[in-house]
């Protein structure tokens, strides 16, 4: 459904994305995962015909993003990272405006957005600017869906949204996916990767890995241990330099240690205690996508 081939783009000589290639199959929920500045927005803006690539080709459906941009704009939906609807128009007015611009009506495509829109419908006469963050998102998604697009692009839809609304939002995306819509979503939150069918991990304009979240985790290939509690950066540094340790880093409320080779828990405890960190609570853990990302970044360096 989406085919990206060797796409590059730079701004004033600084490259934002470098030679990116991937495909997204029809009906998949594809995640674009990476920190701020990785190139997520640039790629989405190229795919939504708002930005011209310097090199490479990209097709959405059967349409080229550069040559067929006029046709393409009719069949895609886009939700920008920043709330981009008219704050001085009401919920209903925004939705009718976008329906009219796409040559359709709310009534005609109501079934597509019903699940999402009915949650904000009680506030249909409220100005969009007076909505809460979660409601703004639902409105933005409704507006992006009102013309029944085959593909939707969402640029960091959950950034700055509370955890409950985030969860709800992903449930909505799953439903849209189940209705057969292809979704490309970008996010800086690694935990959201597990909710996608397939993810591309990107960093500094490069794709580090593209796979399903399960496969990414399975391909981790190192032993990973967790020590609960925070011990201070100096000790983490010493852990990192200890024998057989590939990496050690802070991970939320715990410290994660990666070992180069298979190792027994006793030996791990021994190593940890030798640098002065209490090691009684150490335990092996399965990596998350974030651990994989950190590993890939380290390999890249």
């Amino acid at each position, binding site marked *: 459904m989406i085919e990206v081939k060797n796409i590059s*783009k730079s701004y004033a000589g600084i490259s934002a994305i470098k030679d990116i290639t991937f495909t997204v199959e029809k009906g998949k929920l594809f995640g674009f995962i990476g920190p701020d500045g990785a190139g997520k927005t640039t790629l989405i803006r190229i795919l*939504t*015909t*708002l*930005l*011209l*690539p310097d090199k490479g080709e990209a097709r959405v459906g059967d349409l080229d993003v550069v040559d067929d*941009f*006029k046709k393409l*704009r*009719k069949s*895609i939906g*886009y939700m*920008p990272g*920043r*709330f*981009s*609807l*008219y*704050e*001085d*128009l009401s919920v209903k*007015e925004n939705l*009718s*405006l*976008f329906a*009219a*611009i*796409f*040559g359709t009506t709310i009534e005609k495509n109501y079934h597509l957005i019903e699940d999402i829109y009915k949650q904000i419908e009680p506030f249909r006469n409220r100005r969009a600017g007076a909505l809460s963050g979660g409601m703004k998102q639902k409105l933005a998604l409704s*507006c992006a869906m009102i013309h029944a697009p085959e593909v939707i692009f969402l640029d960091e839809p959950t950034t700055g949204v509370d955890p409950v609304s985030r969860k709800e939002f992903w449930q909505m995306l799953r439903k849209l996916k189940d209705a057969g819509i292809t979704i490309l979503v970008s996010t800086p939150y690694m935990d959201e990767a597990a909710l996608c069918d397939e993810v591309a991990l990107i960093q500094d304009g490069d794709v580090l890995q593209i796979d399903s979240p399960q496969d990414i985790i399975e391909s981790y290939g190192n032993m990973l241990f967790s020590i609960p509690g925070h011990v201070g950066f100096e000790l983490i540094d010493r852990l990192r330099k200890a024998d057989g340790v590939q990496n050690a880093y802070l991970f939320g409320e715990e410290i994660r240690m990666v070992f180069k080779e298979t190792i027994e828990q006793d030996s791990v405890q021994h190593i940890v205690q030798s640098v002065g960190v209490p090691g009684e609570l150490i335990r092996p853990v399965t990596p998350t996508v974030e651990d994989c990302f950190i590993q890939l970044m380290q390999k890249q360096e």
Partner: protein
Amino acid sequence: MRKIRFILIKEFKQIFRNRAMLPLIIIMPIVQILVLSYAVDYEIKNLNLYVVDFDNSRLSRELQSKFTSSDYFRLSGFGQDLNEAEFALSSRESDLVLVIPSNFERQLIAEGTGDLQILIDAVDGSKAGLAAGYGGSIIRDYTGQITKEYALRYGANIGNQVRTVETLPQFRFNPLMDYKSYMVPGILVILVTMLGAFLSSMNIVREKELGTIEQINVTPIRKYEFILGKTIPFWIIGIFVFSLGLIEAKVAFNIPIAGSLWVLYSFTGVYLFLVLGFGLFISTITETQQQAMFISWFFLVIFILMGGLFTPIENMPPWAQTITLFNPIRYFIEVTRAVMLKGSGFGDLINNFMIISGYAVFTISLAVLRYRKTTG
């Protein structure tokens, strides 16, 4: 069509939901026409006159009263000391000093000539020029009058020596030389120009700043649909404000509208497209409202100052006159003055119509061509 209708509804709603907009649309014409037409008045009255009369004769007193009985002069000081007069002038208590020498009356009667001196504070050059002009004409009138008087009294011998030619100007198209009749048609032009240029130049760039343009650009909306949606509401507001100003000019100042309203409105309609095209073009080339504001100010100040409203174009140096040929405001001010004061018809103004239409096509095309939905 349905698309454009929705976009128009959207723009109108946004305009009228903007709290600053309604007061601006209503108050701006009232203030501009009322305040500017009163404030910008080239006529100077009540100049402060200091008289130094060394003669103290009947004729010298009569001359003084000729000065002070006109509207232009007011006696602010009187004496027989030149130093005091100089001081009154330098301390700005007086604008001009009339010095009458001691043998004024005798010399005038005996020899038929007389010397007078007028000292004028010329810090404000145009005021000084007017003071000299008014003073000169009062003195001329007065000498003419006494020449006749003495000719009648003493026979023809003096009358034979002096022949005076009197000029009686007749002011066509503005018989009372009312500055307001001259200013208001021009101020109407400034009004629609400022309103149109600012509203439109802030518009697209505002959508850029807020990010809403991103969502619009990804839709299949056509460029011309978008630009039309941005133009028509401001065009209607422009026509409304122009009408408000015109009604005010008629009601408050009784400014004549000698020509046909139809001609006036067809010019206004085309001229508004010119202004809106200019504003939208600025809106497409800028990234922030601040930039748009500065750029439109830059052009507007030049256009307004060189438009012939404050300084007549004929009084400008030749190179400046050449520049005004590229100034659209100039052509529209010519039109409003010609239609309102002289009653010119469409046929008299066909040249201006072609030029204004040409500019309108130019600015609108520039805005449409420059508006890009894709960057990069």
